């Protein structure tokens, strides 16, 4: 793996909280596809229209957990599986991550899952 960077600005841009998504449409308030020039997209054109600020925070925390080398590779294993493995190996992963993953509101897999 390449050296992980905690700051992921290189491939996704941090959004301001009150942006609607780059395209101002008169009719729909929900933007379906932000302009490619404005916001960097993930591969496969997945938009980052996370509306709820809380979920964004949680997702950020989970991405930090994914990127942390100490817990091993994040690809091919669910976040919960990875957390439990870290727990079993005595690495003391933060308990908040366990709560977040078990709450069911967030993605079960890391960002790269299905894309590598």
């Amino acid at each position, binding site marked *: *793996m390449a050296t992980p960077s905690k700051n992921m600005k290189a491939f996704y841009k941090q959004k301001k909280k009150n942006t609607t998504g780059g395209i101002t449409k008169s009719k729909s308030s929900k933007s379906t596809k932000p302009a490619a020039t404005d916001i960097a997209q993930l591969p496969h054109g997945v938009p980052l229209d996370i509306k709820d600020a809380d979920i964004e925070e949680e997702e950020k925390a989970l991405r930090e957990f994914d990127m942390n*080398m100490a817990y*091993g590779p994040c*690809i*091919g*294993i*669910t976040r919960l*599986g990875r957390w439990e*493995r870290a727990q079993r*190996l005595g690495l003391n992963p933060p308990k908040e991550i366990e709560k977040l993953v078990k709450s069911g509101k967030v993605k079960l897999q890391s960002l790269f899952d299905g894309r590598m």
Partner: protein
Amino acid sequence: MEVDSQEQLQRKQSTYLSLDENFEIQKEVYRGQQYSQIYFARLHMMRTLLYSLVPNWKSHLPVCTVLELEEGKECIIVGTLYKHMKLKPCILDEYSKERSVAPLIKPHNFMHQDDYLVLEDESGRVKLGGTKLSPSVYVTGVVVALHGKETSAGAFFVEDVLEAGLPPQIKQPLKSREDKYVVFVSGLSIGRSSSNPLQFQLLVDHITGHLGDEEEQGLAAEIVHLVIVGNSVEISRGLLNGQNLASKDQSRLSEPFKELDILLTQVFSSHHCDDQHFKVSLLKFLYCSCCLSIFIYVQIAASLPLDIMPGSSDPANFALPQQPLNRCLFPGSTTFNTFRSCTNPHCFELDSIRFLGTSGQNIDDLTKYSEAKDKLDFLERTLRWRHLAPTAPNTLGCYPFTDRDPFLIDSCPDVYFVGNQEKYETCLLKGLEGQLVRLICIPRFCETGVAVVVSVFHLPGC
């Protein structure tokens, strides 16, 4: 010669405990994971162990990761070794546009003098220099601690190596002082055109007490366990070429299994025919000489417990750990509760004596990618590295475990065996903390006719 003495010998019993749970994969779920998970688990477990050993080795030196190396700073790094081998077959060679004249490859060994070692951990990798670490001894997948410093060229000059060493051994005193024997046989290869069914029949007759005089039968009654270490059947390649089988070929496919099942059922049966046997013995046993002629035969009551392990030619999965052979293959033998189909590798305890061994794939793979003066040397290395199959999953098929590496050896066995080797070899290995292990190479029975009998009473440390 008179037959039919009324004596009854009791076969000795011993307590058996199977420790194969670690090697079973029924509970594992494949979610598309890659081998990075098993390497992470291996590195983490071994690194934790090595970190605990480093203070006793060189306490004055700092321990750092590969990324934290500084030029000229002497330190200790821990990581997984990777051996770059020039002659190792690579799938990309098929796609190479340049078809240069390939160097002559010895198919049994891929070593080359230009091979070099690289140490890798999560943060990075570094090429290893110096003469202390010989690429001919090490293979990809071994986790070691290295003392040295980074050179100006960016390589790591190795001054000293720390291997994990033999794991701790739990010694339990033998409960009884009576002598008991365990028989190991491997490579029966029933179904091979060159295999002689008489050889295995003679072995079965001997261990069930049908051969020999009272003394021999007394010895046979002291055999408490039989382990068949892989490659029990061999199916002709012509039958497995992917074509649909004609009905006559289908029966040919199952013949080796039927033959094996019949022979194994005899092992369990305590009844035998009333005929006298005249047989010329072709077997060489290691604890008694060849015996001929007829005697007063004595019934040995109670059947012999049997473990059968899969090997590379058996109908089990290819990747290690191989799962137990399906019980449907042995309709006659599975009716006996002392018949056990086991995994490969196989670990069990008999009267508190720990046995651990494989059917040979791990040692054969080490033979291809490294060199040693004999097979016992490879066995010793796997114990010192505390890993049964370090080349898995690099060159040896392996299941992609996510949370553990089942091949790590936590506890030193008393008997460590490997099957399907060319010849019988054995030695006693002594560890620094008083561990004593009997290393055994079991030869292929169809080629040598040799089975190995281990006397439990005479094991050191018991």
